[in-house]
């Protein structure tokens, strides 16, 4: 990894957005906040803690999936990918650069959810680090999926649509905003394939929102870890960097 490039790219694509396009940052926040509000109203506050944890997961997952739109735009419209292919960096630097830029860009949302989690006693000194690792792995795996899919998208018009679709499906259907115990037990394993499910089960368990067995915590964490490594490897190995 080239740290100078990662720093420069994070400023180029992330910090510049915060400085000059703050309305985008608000857009990023709007859907999870709307979901938080709805859940608060509908459940009369009972599920607000799930909504806070779900919001944090949703912001991180959206970060990764929204890379699809960014990457397609940067490859087909601005030609930034062509510019960078002919330099010393490789696809892994590029994914990391975009991931960090998007993380910085969405940091106001992350900070807001962390503050809410502290206020509602969801976040404690003991679960802070495991939760941080969990959402970082989630960001890593969804960004890798985003990069791989983006490299296959042939037209810009499909990029943002696919990003929105994946974001919605993979943060609404899995138990991100509701207790995973609402799912039939037979669906636990199949749904664990989705990084958002693994992340949500671990988060809900580690924050004591759901009474979760140690085995379930370990399994969900290991699945997320393996998925992050696997998806990153697959995206670097099989996505289109140099075109054929």
């Amino acid at each position, binding site marked *: 990894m*080239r740290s*100078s*490039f990662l*720093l*420069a*790219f994070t*400023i*180029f*694509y992330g910090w*510049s*957005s915060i*400085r*000059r*396009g703050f309305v985008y940052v608000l857009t990023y926040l709007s859907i999870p906040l709307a979901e938080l509000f709805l859940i608060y109203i509908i459940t009369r506050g009972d599920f607000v803690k799930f909504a806070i944890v779900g919001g944090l997961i949703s912001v991180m997952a959206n970060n990764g999936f929204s890379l699809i739109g960014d990457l397609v735009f940067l490859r087909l*419209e*601005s*030609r*930034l990918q*062509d*510019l*960078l*292919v*002919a*330099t*010393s*960096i490789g696809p892994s*630097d590029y994914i990391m650069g975009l991931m960090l830029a998007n993380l910085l860009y969405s940091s106001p949302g992350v900070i807001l959810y962390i503050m809410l989690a502290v206020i509602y006693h969801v976040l404690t000194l003991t679960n802070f680090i495991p939760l941080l690792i969990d959402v970082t792995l989630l960001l890593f795996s969804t960004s890798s999926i985003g990069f791989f899919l983006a490299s296959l998208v042939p037209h810009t018009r499909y990029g943002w649509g696919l990003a929105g679709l994946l974001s919605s499906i993979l943060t609404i259907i899995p138990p991100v905003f509701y207790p995973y115990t609402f799912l039939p037990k037979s669906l636990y394993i199949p749904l664990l394939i989705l990084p958002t499910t693994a992340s949500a089960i671990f988060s809900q368990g580690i924050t004591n929102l759901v009474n979760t067995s140690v085995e379930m915590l370990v399994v969900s964490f290991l699945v997320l870890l393996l998925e992050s490594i696997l998806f990153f490897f697959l995206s670097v190995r099989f996505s289109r960097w*140099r*075109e*054929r």
Partner: protein
Amino acid sequence: MLETINLTKIYRDGTIALDNLTFIANSRIVTLLGRNGAGKTTLTRILSTQLLPTSGIARIEGFDVVKDAKKVRKIIASIPQEAKSIGIASPMEHLVMYLTARGLSFKEATEISRSALKEVGLWEVKDKPSDELSGGMKRKIFVAMALASNAELVLLDEPTTGLDPYSRLEVWSVLKSIKSKILLTTHYMEEAEELSDEVILLHKGKLIAKGSIKELLAKFDNKVRVEGIGEYKIGRLRISYVDRNEASDYVGKYVIKPITLEDLFIIYGGESLEE
């Protein structure tokens, strides 16, 4: 030195973009000329290691662009056709990002970016978001990248497209001042005439002529262009090329002009210009 041997590129839809292209070029500024679809951008992208060829060999300074791609990337800088700046980022942020991708430290990249931005006339707007800049200024960000790269070979695909004449002159002056070798792709004959040490004329993926402009024009030294009559049809315009000593027959009836690079384009492009 640029070298291709039987270089061929066939896209998935069957389009033959390059057809057994073989040439060697070793001048400081080499210009690729050709109509749309001639294969200029495909050749530039293959040489820039952005696109893999179907078959054949391409080398830059002896390094194979497929097998030695990493080595090639260290000695080239490539500015793609239609490269667009990112609206929210400033010219300075663009340059620093690009130079760090080329392997410079953040500090070195910042220092070199400063001098490059001054040289291309973007210093005053270095911290402005690029979507607040004029089209010419946006294009100059990429020229500044080429300048700052200090690469052995800079590949520029239509760097002045869309620029007004004044901005174009500015870009030309920068390109002339760059120490690197340049492979330039352009549609503009006057640009090729102004900058090129060597011209490569491509047509339908094939090499049709190569040499300095002087050498290429010398072949038609005894000819003049007659407009209004002739075998070459471009839209409603008919053109023919006749010997100088026969030109008097056409005086008063048709427009007679000396042969320029544009005429080479027409002559070598041949019948396809009637498409």
